[in-house]
């Protein structure tokens, strides 16, 4: 049963829509360093003042607001008192936005909750407006009082955004405050359960957005001439320059080709041996002793739960110059001092071996449970018909596992570009670094190692897009093979 709304309330409901959008927008803007009006000093003396803190960070910690300015305070180029005031203005602004956001949530409730929410929204909007105007005021005060021969400042353009939003939020919330009628005396705070549930899940949606969707926004670095610690602005927009460099500059193209060769080779070797876990499971099931089977299964699964760093520690202990192999050989009187981890021979095969050793026991589990699900009567019938061990394996077990294998294979084809970087990073040394550099590691080396953010973003971006396309294709294929989606 829906209650008939008065025309005034209908208008209010319409006004709520832009109001909520503004509230969300201002709350999101808080986290963007580029839109931070509080960072108005670009350099103090020789030192460049970095501007990488968001307004939210500045309001939480005074230290990040005054980052790089300690000397300026000490020498007296700027007054510290003014900065404390600026900090208070930031806190006011952020609190105002937070209050408005909370009020936005309340607007999903009944009249009583709406009344309270509107009151808070007016207060929040006012705080936001006062805070942002104060920031503007302090900017001018600072220009007057600071030693302008040492200090360079820029006008905080972002402050206009906050002032405009503040005014809009204030006006709209005053309007809805007037329009929404007072709640009846006996009414309690309540929200319809559909909105209540949404408000409960919202914080997690925000987290998910911040760490899974927001990184897509950083793809913009691919189109700018950005150096670590610098800024991006329309002045250093370069369009597709980095894409062109990657494919036209000979040095980069050559390296990318090597990287692709490594990536596809390692993935290809992985695909060629992807049947190993299945065969492992089939032969494991052929052993009659349950205890022995359990023993094998228990201990061959352990390496899967050990990180690649520890796998490398193991490799180090076994194959280093004074590792197990050499010590063993020496105890037989052989003069063995080879370091099997150095050098650049057969790296692809070695990596395949490590990967198989680590993963085969674990990957076999899904097939082992698959075998447990095969009807025992099939085996009995086959035995009666005179089928031998291998015939039973080939004609009963294998076909029973093939659907699972197909899905696994399709999934790994979809992931052909993602080898992960841990394994290759830990095994890298000066001699083998070019035969171990797979795509993920290349992106890491380029971006973190060389600090070449734009180019590594370009590579990572293309990889991500191809990976999504591959996944869709794989899903299509799986659907036509099995009649079921895998994604």
């Amino acid at each position, binding site marked *: 049963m829906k209650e008939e709304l008065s025309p005034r309330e209908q208008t209010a409901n319409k006004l709520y829509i832009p109001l909520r959008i503004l509230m969300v927008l201002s709350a999101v803007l808080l986290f963007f360093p580029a839109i931070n009006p509080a960072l108005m000093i670009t350099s103090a003396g020789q030192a460049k003042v970095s501007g990488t803190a968001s307004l939210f960070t500045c309001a939480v910690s005074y230290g990040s607001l005054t980052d790089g300015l300690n000397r300026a305070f000490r020498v007296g180029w700027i007054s510290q008192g003014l900065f404390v005031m600026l900090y208070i203005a930031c806190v006011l602004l952020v609190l105002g936005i937070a209050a408005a956001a909370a009020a936005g949530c309340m607007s999903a409730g009944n009249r009583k909750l709406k009344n309270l929410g509107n009151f808070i929204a007016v207060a929040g909007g006012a705080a936001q407006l006062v805070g942002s105007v104060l920031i503007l005021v302090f900017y001018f005060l600072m220009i007057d009082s600071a030693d302008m021969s040492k200090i360079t400042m820029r006008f905080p353009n972002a402050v206009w955004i906050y002032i405009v939003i503040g005014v809009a939020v204030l006006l709209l919330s005053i309007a809805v405050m007037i329009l929404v009628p007072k709640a009846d005396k006996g009414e309690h705070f309540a929200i319809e359960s*559909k909105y209540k549930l949404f408000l409960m899940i919202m914080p997690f949606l925000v*987290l998910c957005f911040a760490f899974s969707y927001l990184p897509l926004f950083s793809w913009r670095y691919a189109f700018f001439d950005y150096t670590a610690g610098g800024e991006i602005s329309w002045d250093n927009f370069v369009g597709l320059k980095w894409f062109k460099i990657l494919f036209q500059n000979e040095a980069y193209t050559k390296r990318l080709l090597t990287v692709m060769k490594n990536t596809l080779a390692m993935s290809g070797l992985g695909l060629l041996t992807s049947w190993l876990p299945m065969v492992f499971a089939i032969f494991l099931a052929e052993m009659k002793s349950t205890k022995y089977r359990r023993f094998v299964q228990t201990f061959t699964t*352990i390496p899967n739960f050990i990180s690649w760093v*520890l796998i490398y520690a*193991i490799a180090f*202990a076994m194959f280093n110059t004074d590792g197990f192999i050499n*010590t063993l050989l020496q*105890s037989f009187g052989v003069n063995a001092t080879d370091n099997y981890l150095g050098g650049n021979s057969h790296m692809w095969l070695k990596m395949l071996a490590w990967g198989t050793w680590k993963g085969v026991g674990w990957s076999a589990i899904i097939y082992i449970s698959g075998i447990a699900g095969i009807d025992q009567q099939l085996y009995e019938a086959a035995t009666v018909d005179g089928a031998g061990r291998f015939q039973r394996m080939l004609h009963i077990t294998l076909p029973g596992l093939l659907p699972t294998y197909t899905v696994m294979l399709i999934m790994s084809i979809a992931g052909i570009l993602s080898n992960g970087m841990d394994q290759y990073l830990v095994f890298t040394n000066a001699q083998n670094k070019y035969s171990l550099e797979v795509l993920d590691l290349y992106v890491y080396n380029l971006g973190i190692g060389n600090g070449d953010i734009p180019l*590594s973003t370009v590579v990572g971006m293309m990889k991500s897009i191809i990976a999504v396309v591959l996944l869709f294709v794989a899903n299509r294929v799986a659907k036509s093979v099995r009649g079921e989606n895998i994604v």
Partner: protein
Amino acid sequence: MAMTKQEKLDAKAEKAYEKKHRRKYKLTTGDIIFNILNYGFFGIFTISCIFPFYYIFINTISSRSAVTRGEVLFYPIGVTLKNYLDILKVDDVFRAFGVSITRTIVGTALMVLATGFIGYLVTKEEMWHRKLWYRFLIITMYFNAGIIPWYMNMNMLGLTDHFIAYIIPGIVAPYNIILVKTYIESIPGELEESAFMDGAGYLTVFWKIVWPLSRPILATIAIFGAVGHWNSFTDSLILMQNTPKLYTLQHLLYNYLNQATNIGAAMNSGDSAAAAAAAEMLNNKVIKYTVAMTSIIPILLVYPFMQRYFEKGIMLGAVKG
């Protein structure tokens, strides 16, 4: 490992079956050869999976001189705990151990709480646009922006060089949400309904009814989540570039194995003689083994518990939305 009742019954039935069939069919020579090869292969492979851990372990509890002389191969010589006591003195190791433990406990606890709650919420048909939000969460499994944009994003949010960067991004875990949601859907709804009849709210129902009933799946995701946290190394490598005191144990071990940061340990202790001694000590391979062992032991300790959840855990890789 303790067997459940059902497993015991199964084993019994299996034995009876074998006995019956052994009388019927005698082993042929081919069978015997096959069995020898099969058992032999699995035996050798299993040993290859155990022996390295054992080898590292006996090295760390043997006297250093015996290790240097190359005598320690298959059993410890001159058993001592000196190596373990020594690494306790290295501030870096101690601190990294603390960071790893804290992030594992706090990170896993928050992840499990959040996943349980989200998993419950997304089963509620009456939620406003439930399908949309569920897809919004789940679809993030299938794309990622790439490691550098992710890093720049963390940078933008001001999380680099902060401990919480280990915790917060892992709270919403889509795979686990699917697992928990599927599990909760299989719980009969009557209990919940009667609680609502009694006037309980969503939070009460979740905490008093759904949470206790979904313990098996929550334990599964907890244990796999904890192992993930303990093993993670890339995030420390990328996010904590300027803050060595927040390195995880894995990251520190990686640095030791690469002999890159012995100076770091030396700088912590003030006087130069002690510094030199610390650096000297860290160059010793046995100390590296000891650090490795401290990082393997927690995994081996939880491993027996984990085994119970393998069947559910393997779904982690094979579920669909």
